[in-house]
């Protein structure tokens, strides 16, 4: 009975481009002899001059390396799958055995057409030529048939807009710049903060306090002076998004909040531009390509945004610094594949990465015919108010001092300090997590993490004056609502959280 042998891309030119072929034999050795008899071109790639299997050719039976089984004597059962996996060095000049060049092949690229409509001049936009300096710079691309001169010229012609020059935007923009994407746009309006440096590798310590775009432009220009960097120092909004996106071919969503995510999605659908999407939380990341012609969009997956405050941001929930490095480079990879038109894009697939378990999972996604923006009968035909859509309303200004005193639900750091100095009896309840409590705290506070409040509120006196706080005030607002709901009469939320306390009252404590 024939056994299926999986053939890696570099060897497919010798198997009539087939990715799997059948061979006969009772052991791996016999199978490989039969294989190289049927496909003689493979012989020099699998065996050395002495007729031994080359050291860098790994052969697996199902998921097991034959080196740890019985090598070439490993028996093969009906139904087994045998895989040939040549090592792919990458990164440095390989000290490979002579006479073997796994990439000295041509015609293996799976060349496709552009899955997006080219901006301005359409798909027939003439491709620019490459200068000698560019040819030298991009040589590792040019020698791969999947990219080659044509692919590199497509990259040079391409215009990509990165939304956000932060965690995801940093690695994405750096790799896209290095890869030679001709026009790289960046949208951001923030300044570099010390707390960004743990992951936003576009920016360095001397950049703290500078505009992120100025810092990004310097870094990207150093990386590749051949390309054009277009900086858009604005807050992306429903008023400017369509105009801003229009000149670009692909949008890379590296933003950090839900209103902007829905805005980017809808604008991409309306303009028919692919959205190379990525998002991160603590140790987990997600990536996909949305809003292509026949593919699903973000709203097919998440039709409704979560209520405000339910899903913590990176500032509230934390994030592993390297995580945006992984997800952002996946976004850059997908962007480059779309531009060149090779491989299988991450369309209709939702990739979930778990860094703690080091595991990738994939969900199949379909375009939802009932999707309000990309479905068959869309109800969203222009950009809407995304802050409102996500339930975020501007905080109403207190109308009078009287009003504050009567309906006070909040207290300022300064007022809290005054009350403490006066010796007013009050209990300060810190609802952050224990690891945050170790960084800074308000003296005399007790720690009851938000998740424990429903179980532990009976430790508190419902008649006592209680001040709840967290890092910035969102979690403690929820704790305050809960305490009031179970009968606590005098609960105040510390406005601005412990960060405001450190700023105004005790600057000797660290901030995070």
């Amino acid at each position, binding site marked *: 009975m024939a056994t299926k042998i999986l053939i890696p891309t570099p060897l497919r030119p010798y198997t009539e481009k087939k990715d799997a072929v059948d061979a006969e034999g009772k052991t791996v050795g016999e199978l490989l002899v039969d294989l190289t008899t049927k496909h003689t071109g493979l012989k020099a790639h699998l065996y050395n001059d002495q007729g031994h299997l080359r050291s860098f050719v790994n052969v697996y039976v199902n998921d097991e390396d034959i080196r740890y089984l019985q090598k070439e004597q490993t028996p093969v059962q009906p139904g087994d799958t045998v895989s040939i996996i040549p090592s792919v060095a990458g990164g440095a000049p390989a000290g490979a055995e002579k006479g073997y060049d796994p990439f000295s092949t041509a015609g293996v690229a799976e060349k496709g057409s552009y899955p997006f409509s080219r901006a301005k001049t359409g798909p027939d936009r003439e491709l620019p030529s490459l200068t000698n300096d560019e040819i030298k710079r991009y040589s590792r691309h040019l020698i791969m048939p999947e990219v080659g001169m044509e692919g590199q010229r497509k990259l040079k012609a391409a215009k990509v807009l990165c939304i956000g020059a932060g965690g995801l935007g940093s690695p994405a923009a750096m790799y896209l710049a290095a890869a030679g994407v001709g026009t790289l746009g960046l949208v951001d309006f923030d300044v570099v903060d010390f707390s960004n440096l743990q992951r936003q590798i576009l920016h360095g310590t001397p950049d703290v306090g500078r505009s992120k775009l100025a810092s990004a432009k310097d870094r990207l220009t150093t990386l590749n002076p051949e390309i054009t960097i277009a900086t858009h120092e604005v807050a992306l909004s429903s008023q400017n998004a369509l105009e801003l996106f229009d000149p670009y071919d692909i949008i890379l969503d590296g933003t*950090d909040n839900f209103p902007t995510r829905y805005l980017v999605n809808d604008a991409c659908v309306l303009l028919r531009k692919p959205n190379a999407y990525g998002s*991160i939380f603590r140790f987990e990341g997600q990536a996909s390509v949305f809003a292509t012609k026949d593919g699903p969009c973000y709203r097919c*997956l*998440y039709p409704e945004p979560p209520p405000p405050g339910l899903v913590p941001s990176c500032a509230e929930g934390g994030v592993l610094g390297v995580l945006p490095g992984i997800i952002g480079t996946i976004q850059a990879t997908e962007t480059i594949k779309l531009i060149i038109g090779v491989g299988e894009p991450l369309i209709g697939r939702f990739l979930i990465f778990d860094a703690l378990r080091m595991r990738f999972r994939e969900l199949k996604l379909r375009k939802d015919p009932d999707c309000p923006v990309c479905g068959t009968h869309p109800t969203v035909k222009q950009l809407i108010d995304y802050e409102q859509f996500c339930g975020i309303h501007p905080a109403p200004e207190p109308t009078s001092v009287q009003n504050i005193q009567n309906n006070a639900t909040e207290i300022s750091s300064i007022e809290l300090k005054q009350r403490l100095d006066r010796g007013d009896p009050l209990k300060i309840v810190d609802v952050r997590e224990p690891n945050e409590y170790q960084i800074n705290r308000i003296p005399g506070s007790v720690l009851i993490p938000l998740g424990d409040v429903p179980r532990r509120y009976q430790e508190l006196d419902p008649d006592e004056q209680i001040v709840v706080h967290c890092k910035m005030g969102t979690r403690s607002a929820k704790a305050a609502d809960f305490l009031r709901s179970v009968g606590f009469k005098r609960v105040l939320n510390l406005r601005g959280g412990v960060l405001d306390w450190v700023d105004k009252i005790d600057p000797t404590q660290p901030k995070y």
Partner: protein
Amino acid sequence: MRVTVRFFARLRDIAGAAELARDVAPGATIGAVWRELAGEFPELVPYERSISSAVNADYARMDDVVGDGDEIAFLPPVSGG
């Protein structure tokens, strides 16, 4: 009928586990499985309208019926960048 439930991101923290096995009634929908779990872990309740779900790695809707041995995944949206 037994199903495996897989939680992601914040939902995993709330449930205290990445994976749980649960017995469900034949003909149960994903929504029924979710509500059962939300009864067990009340902090899940506010996520109901915002999550997406999948059965055996295929995107699914809350009113889809689950089968014996299915793996049901619940994913909250995340916005970090």
